[in-house]
């Protein structure tokens, strides 16, 4: 019981952490981002490096402040205009388990900063690194990939989906090439 309380207290502390110098944690980890599970010459059963949990996930996704900031930035930087409340619009949905360019924090960071060729703009020069990681954390919370105790418990607008802390966790899978031609289309 005591251990449990202690654990909760610790988790609570992390949840309330304010890191105003977040760039220190965001050394550029995107150089090694890969967009496929195929790694020639790698022995079987070894996880691709991009999906390994890194310090970034620990630092940002457990902190309610970062997730909440990510939620605000998602609206203010017009992410919402293309991805809606996660259901998708011009861009693909973010609330489901399908990821065209990877679901790991590093992969999402790379997608935000570098852009992606089928319409995702490169936000690298518009967002600070801290803002980008905050957005990464919020985007992952939309499909239940972040700790429930830190994810936002409410949305800012009425026409929306249940808040991220009520979103069931998903098991990310790689999506198809988003080609509009029939050979690759349906899923």
């Amino acid at each position: 019981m005591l251990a449990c309380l202690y654990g909760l207290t610790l988790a609570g502390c992390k949840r309330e952490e304010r890191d105003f110098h977040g760039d220190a944690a965001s050394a550029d980890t995107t150089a090694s981002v890969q967009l496929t599970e195929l790694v020639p010459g790698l022995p079987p059963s070894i996880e691709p490096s991009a999906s390994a949990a890194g310090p970034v996930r620990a630092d940002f996704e457990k902190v309610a402040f970062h997730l909440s900031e990510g939620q605000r930035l998602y609206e203010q930087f017009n992410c919402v205009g293309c991805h809606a409340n996660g259901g998708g619009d011009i861009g693909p949905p973010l609330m489901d388990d399908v990821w065209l360019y990877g679901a790991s924090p590093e992969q999402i960071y790379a997608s935000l900063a570098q852009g992606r060729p089928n319409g995702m703009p490169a936000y690298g020069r518009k967002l600070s690194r801290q803002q980008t990681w905050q957005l990464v954390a919020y985007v992952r919370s939309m499909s239940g990939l972040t700790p429930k105790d830190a994810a936002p418990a409410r949305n800012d607008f009425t026409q929306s989906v249940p808040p991220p802390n009520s979103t069931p966790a998903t098991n990310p899978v790689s999506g198809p090439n988003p080609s509009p031609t029939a050979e690759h289309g349906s899923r």
Partner: protein
Amino acid sequence: MATWVLLVLTCVPAAFAQSGPVQKNWPMASGNYENSRYSALDQITSDNVKNLRVAWTFGTGVNRGHEEAPVVVGSTMYLVTPYPNFLYALDLSQSGAIKWKFEPKPLAAAQGEACCDYVNRGVAVADGRVFMNTLDGRTIALDADSGKLLWDRRLCDINVGETMTMAPLVIGDKVLVGNAGSQFGARGWIQALDAKSGTTAWKAFSTGSDADCLIGPSFKPYYAQDRGHDLGISTWPIDQWKIGGGTVWGWVSYDPDLDLLFYGTGDPASWNADVRPGDNKWCSGIFARRPSTGEAVWFYQYTAHDLYGHDGINESIVTDIELKPGEGKRKVLLHADRNGHLYVLDRQSGEVLSATPFVRVTATTGVDLKTGYLQFVADKKPQLGKTVRDIAPAAPGGKDWQPSAFSPRTGLMYLPHQTLSMDFEEAPVNYIAGTPYIGAHAKFYADPVDPGDGSRGRFTAWDPAAQKAAWTIKERFPVWCGTVVTAGDVVFYGTMDRWFKAVDAKTGRELWKFQVDSGIVSQPITYLAPDGKQYVAVVAGVGGWPGKIVSNDLKPEDPGSAHGFGNAMKDLPNYTAKGGTLYVFCLQ
């Protein structure tokens, strides 16, 4: 068979007698300059349409929303697909064998700048050239016979949200094209390109100075509020007109006798109307211009200070009709606007002769015919941080881009449209070039009162003189497909739940239907092939704004997907999958 031959012999000459070669071909997306989508072909009639069978089909190789019209000249059909905008020339004397294929290779990034799926509404063919627009904002001319590239001009900057989806129109030696992207704050324009070289003959913006809008001494608008200096600047807060929308992504019609072209302008940006107090000229209205110089002759604003993204780009049908018995025919435009009113305009002056609701309207109380202003309902005005409920018609309007038809035989206008209402919450808005500039959270749903049974679409025959519906057919989903009406008194349209239908133009009685592979959001056409038979063609392939829930795999759990349209289309994936197939029908 013998009877059929007799039909050909007796009917075809009559068809040609009416107005020359246009009747045989379908040389532009709208069929003719009038935008009437009326064909004088009459082999297929309300009596024999039940014998319509598939003659041939063609898979486009693309599975996004197919909103295009096939275009037919002589023995060739020209079919442009959604992005990546393949253009096929199909040989009608060989059941659609590919004569040539052109791949314009648009920038892939343009997919992120297209609000309402990667659509294209068709090409235009004139004097041996094919003119096409691409999603990344180029107009291209090809040799119609060989497919050889003649010229290729980039007219848009996708980094400010500009794309092109509209079908070009050719008047004389000029090709008229316009941009899309009001939802990104793109500043609207129409321009005339020289058909031979592709150079710009004139370009008229929808916002900004009189010089930019080609407003000069010839400009004589009917209503007082449209007269003044630089209204395209003064009806906006400082500099807002630069990101004010008013794109020209819809239909252009033309009256050769008056030598006037007519086109509508898109909605003002952003959807959050509080950032743009003023009438927001020249958005959500209609311009009449001279094709040779582009100079404006008149303008009328359907929706001044548009609050609901209602746009003004819907087609204006050029026709002469008698509005009151004994008064004689008047030169009018027929226009079913997204704001839910069907306008009859005097096309010489821009005067509104009538404006009648054709769907349930809660947002406004009608048009004041003295001032021309649409009267808004104060309770339905969007506010920051407040959700206003039951705004009808919803943002896509009582009818969107899907073009109507007019038959001089019945005097009726045929409207494919929708019955949707919406909840709308204004939100803070932030302009970042190249990203959506919306500032609103919306949720559309089947109109709860009229019809109130959950159906979201209608196909209505409208009597513009009597200002009422002659008959109407309810459909489960928005009828997001154009229509064509023929001298055989048959009207064709398609539905998003995969039916292609023929109904009696006089009564609305269903005469024939055929199930296709994917929902229809395109524009059916009819033409006379080299074998002397009348054919009907339509492309199936669901998508567009309401169909994006299927074509872009949106999640029905999010009521805000597709800017709120996703909420009204949750059940569409139960009725159709993606597709892209051309169907061509003829009598058995």
